[in-house]
């Protein structure tokens, strides 16, 4: 039986320092993180002991082959909602707490945006009157530089990695038709061998994928990333690190991105695709092709010699998912009701993509963005290369509510403002993030360091005490809420846990 698909999203935000002449993006990112932390809570350091981003899921490690990915001197904080907010390379990055369902993850992803908005406001208070640090939730600067929005899914270690690669690739190539965040123009040579003319494409990220499978994340990016760093018991679990997605602002798009992928991975785990091979002949070529085909009607060459459109592949996936739901149930994605909502929304979006796209203009990023930019272009008689359209594209992703084009579009919500505000400081109750977040809410001054799979307490006189959290499904509200109610001090908590 497929295990529950615990999931999370790491978003690297684009950053622009306005009127900070001596600044660089690393310094600006640090200002943001530190300003937020200073006004929100005591800073708790990150514990790097279990980090091993160079480990490869195919079974080999590349020690020394890659520069260290983690710069330990940079601003880095664990928040009371269980998230991590830090500087990664030259970007502020927010990793959500682990969530149990797609709906939960939509909420904590939105809380992440809110945290960035609060960080910008906090930074403004320490900067000069004409200075500002602005962040964008997108994946490209339009000049060939990309930064990621990575998803993570908990998987059963016993599933052969080669099966995951084979069976999830068709989903990663085609899901962009509803997860794409849209982009004016192109940044690489496309599948036809010529640079243009690409007016608008579905995905921000598709241009940057060059390999079907691999360990890299910063060059020669692979559709399936092999980073094997489970942040959990490695004998039982794998964390599938998905780098192929766009950062979404539309809640429905995030919901579908996470929900369909969690379900497809559960089906892979239960070997449900064994008799339904949807392998694509040339996945890298196809991912570029699908992103540039706004008609959604171009056939993709399949490995068996036939052809299908991206929408066809998604209909097939959905039909199989319905069969899976009937025969195996939907506990892996949060139960029957959550599963039914997912299947219904999945079907509705495919119908919309084949029918009147206008119906999706309030649910999908790329459809919403294209509709506005194309209308603006027509009204002013602009060429697609006009910089005003590229500016409009960027403005869509501006995280400042007053400046964001996205926030003016009255997009469909799956959350409320009150829920998002609460999720800025409260962890989800459904995973170990609850334990992490509650410890930081109650006893931040006693927490010396935190990681995804451990907390280290400093109680003063004793040696540091490390509490392992190797199971993402333990330490939930159901497990430990009462324990927190009963403990007055961290020493009591540690004693009760036998740590």
């Amino acid at each position, binding site marked *: 039986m497929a295990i529950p698909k615990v999931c999370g999203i790491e978003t690297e935000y*684009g950053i622009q320092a306005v009127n900070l002449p001596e600044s660089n993006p690393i310094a600006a990112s640090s200002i943001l993180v530190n300003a937020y932390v200073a006004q929100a809570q005591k800073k708790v350091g990150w514990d790097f002991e279990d980090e091993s981003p160079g480990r490869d899921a195919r079974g080999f490690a590349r020690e020394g082959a890659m520069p260290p990915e983690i710069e330990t001197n940079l601003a880095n904080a664990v928040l009371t909602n269980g998230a991590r907010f830090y500087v990664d390379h030259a970007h502020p990055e927010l990793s959500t707490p682990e969530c149990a369902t797609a709906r939960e993850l939509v909420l904590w992803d939105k809380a992440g945006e809110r945290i960035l908005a609060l960080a910008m406001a906090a930074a403004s208070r320490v900067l000069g009157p004409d200075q500002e640090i602005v962040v964008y939730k997108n994946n490209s600067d339009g000049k060939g530089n990309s930064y990621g929005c990575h998803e993570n899914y908990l998987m059963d270690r016993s599933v052969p990695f080669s099966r995951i690669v084979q069976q999830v690739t068709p989903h990663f190539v085609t899901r962009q038709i509803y997860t794409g965040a849209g982009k004016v123009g192109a940044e690489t040579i496309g599948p036809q061998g010529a640079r243009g003319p690409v007016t608008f494409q579905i995905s921000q990220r598709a241009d940057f994928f060059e390999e079907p499978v691999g360990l890299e994340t910063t060059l020669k990016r692979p559709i399936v990333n092999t980073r094997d760093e489970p942040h959990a018991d490695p004998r039982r679990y794998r964390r599938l690190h998905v780098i192929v997605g766009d950062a979404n602002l539309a809640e429905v798009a995030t919901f579908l991105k996470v929900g369909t992928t969690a379900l497809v991975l559960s089906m892979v785990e239960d070997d449900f695709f064994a008799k339904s091979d949807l392998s694509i002949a040339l996945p890298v070529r196809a991912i570029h092709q699908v992103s540039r085909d706004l008609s959604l009607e171009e056939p993709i060459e399949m490995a068996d010699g036939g052809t*299908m459109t991206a929408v*066809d592949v998604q209909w*097939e996936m959905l039909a199989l998912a319905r069969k899976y739901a009937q025969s195996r149930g939907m506990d892996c994605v949060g139960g029957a009701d959550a599963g039914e909502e997912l299947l219904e929304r999945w079907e509705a979006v495919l119908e919309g993509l084949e029918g009147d796209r206008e119906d999706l203009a309030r649910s999908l990023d790329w459809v919403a963005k294209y509709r506005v930019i194309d209308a603006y272009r027509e009204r002013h008689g602009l060429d697609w290369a006009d910089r005003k359209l590229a500016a409009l594209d960027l403005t869509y992703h*501006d995280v400042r509510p007053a400046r*964001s084009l996205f926030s003016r579009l009255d997009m469909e919500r799956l959350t409320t403002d009150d829920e998002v505000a609460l999720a800025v400081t409260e962890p989800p109750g459904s995973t170990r993030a609850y334990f992490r977040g509650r410890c930081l809410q109650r006893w931040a001054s006693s927490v010396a360091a935190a990681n995804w799979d451990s907390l280290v307490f400093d109680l003063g006189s004793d040696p540091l005490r490390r509490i392992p959290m190797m199971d993402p499904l333990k330490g939930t509200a159901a497990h430990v809420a009462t324990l927190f109610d009963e403990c007055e001090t961290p020493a009591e908590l540690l004693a009760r846990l036998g740590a």
Partner: protein
Amino acid sequence: MAQREVKKRTAPARDKQAEEEAPPQSAKGEKLKAELDELLDEIDEVLEDNAEEFVRNYVQKGGE
């Protein structure tokens, strides 16, 4: 090899001819169009004063 048969759950793909002969926009369509026009009127408020410079200055280092 023959095109793969795909069972669709919806009506057949859009008919180009039928699209051209589509009836006049419904009331819902008119409302959406009016909203879009209003939004386009507002866009100059959010669009940076100097789009050229704004786009040129937006340069990011790679990440991940």
